[in-house]
């Protein structure tokens, strides 16, 4: 299981790469609004995030994921189950 702060740090690093450093990333960063990503781009971002954490994130949870914090909590849950 990965610790939450470590997940947020790694997730932020991934997002910085994905957005080419255009946006400052924090726990409360809104994936759609702040990063200006459409739903398909979020799904493609998740493919990278999944590789980094070695988890599969079900598409079903996406409606509950708005911020970096929401995503980090889901990853924490998935790595705990693994």
């Amino acid at each position, binding site marked *: 299981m990965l610790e939450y702060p470590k997940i947020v740090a790694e997730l932020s690093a991934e997002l910085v790469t994905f957005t080419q450093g255009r946006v400052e990333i924090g726990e409360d960063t809104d994936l759609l609004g702040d990063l200006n990503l459409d739903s*398909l781009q979020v799904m493609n971002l998740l493919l990278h995030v999944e590789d980094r954490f*070695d*988890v*599969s994130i079900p598409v079903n949870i996406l409606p509950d994921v708005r911020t970096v914090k929401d995503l980090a909590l889901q990853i924490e849950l998935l790595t705990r189950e*693994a």
Partner: protein
Amino acid sequence: MGLFDKFQKLAAARRDLAALGIDPFGVEIERIISPTEGVIHGRRTILAGTNNYLGLTFHPECIAAAHRALDDQGTGTTGSRMANGSYSGHRRLEEELAAFYGMRDAIVFSTGYQANLGTLAGLTGAGDVVLLDADCHASIYDGCRLAGAEVIRFRHNNPEDLAKRMRRLGARAAETLIVVEGIYSMLGDRAPLKEIVDVKRELGGYLLVDEAHSLGVLGDRGCGLAEELGVLADADFIVGTFSKSLGGAGGFCVSDLPELDLVRYSSRPYIFTASPSPATIASTRRALSILAAGRDLRARLRENYLRLHAGLTALGYTLGAPPSPVIAVVLRDRVEALQFWSQLLARGVYVNLMLPPATPDGVSLIRCSVSAAHTAEQIDAVCAAFAELRAAAGIGAVECGAGA
């Protein structure tokens, strides 16, 4: 938030199009002349964006069969098969589809969209896992959503990524449903089905192949990609549509598994909708028998799509995939694609405009679909229109994408 607030973005996008004087999503074909010609904006136009792969929409035998059914059985069935009864044509078509694929049984649905919706929602539910190719059609995503199953995407056409995700599932992998398409509708690329079957053989699971764009197009008998690659026996479920190569409307799922018949009873898109009309069933049955009877239409289709693919390649266009009846031209951006589409129409060529987020990786595409009914002259006329646009200000001069 108001009920209609969410439409503001759509309304703005539509205003932008109107300002350009382009209405790509509201085209009216004022008169349909043949499978490959119509009248649009008062002008005789070559239809190269129809999915009418075998050109059977005007086949005299299909039309005669539909006429007879209309006269004998009336205009509609007025209800669902579960509640109001099946007509004998529904069952005969299911038997004929099963025989065509050499499988035990088939279920007929009222549209192709509902075939995926009904099969996925009938087959899977809460607690099940569906692994789907990231580029799968919206009907597959929607079917999974209706089912309430856990949905995991794997990278498009990437069997290693599928295997990785199946391994993560551990013991659950053996009961998952893997979903891929024979030919993907946006770029026209094919699934690496042999390699996906290898993953299934190693790690378990069931395989569903959507052959909507490959039925009547690929395979010696025209069954689709699974037949062409010799892995039909490994496809547990094949889904397809009547609206493309068969020139009707409706869809089906065929399987050798005895459980398919039970799917009917758990499939809301099968139970709670009116069954296909007698005329639709009759023309579809006739079209299926024409498709099954010979290879001539497939051969003509292949000749045509090879001709268009070669023509566009020679002009220097970047195409989405190796030759198939779906030929996608990759353009630089949304604005270029819009202008391109509009200028092709002004030259008497109707194709499809495909923009993000409907397209993979945010590309803007001009999508042509080729028919066995196109003449060589029509294909050449389409190429000539593309050539004129190429000459004008280097439009379409994009240097990226998969190429072919």
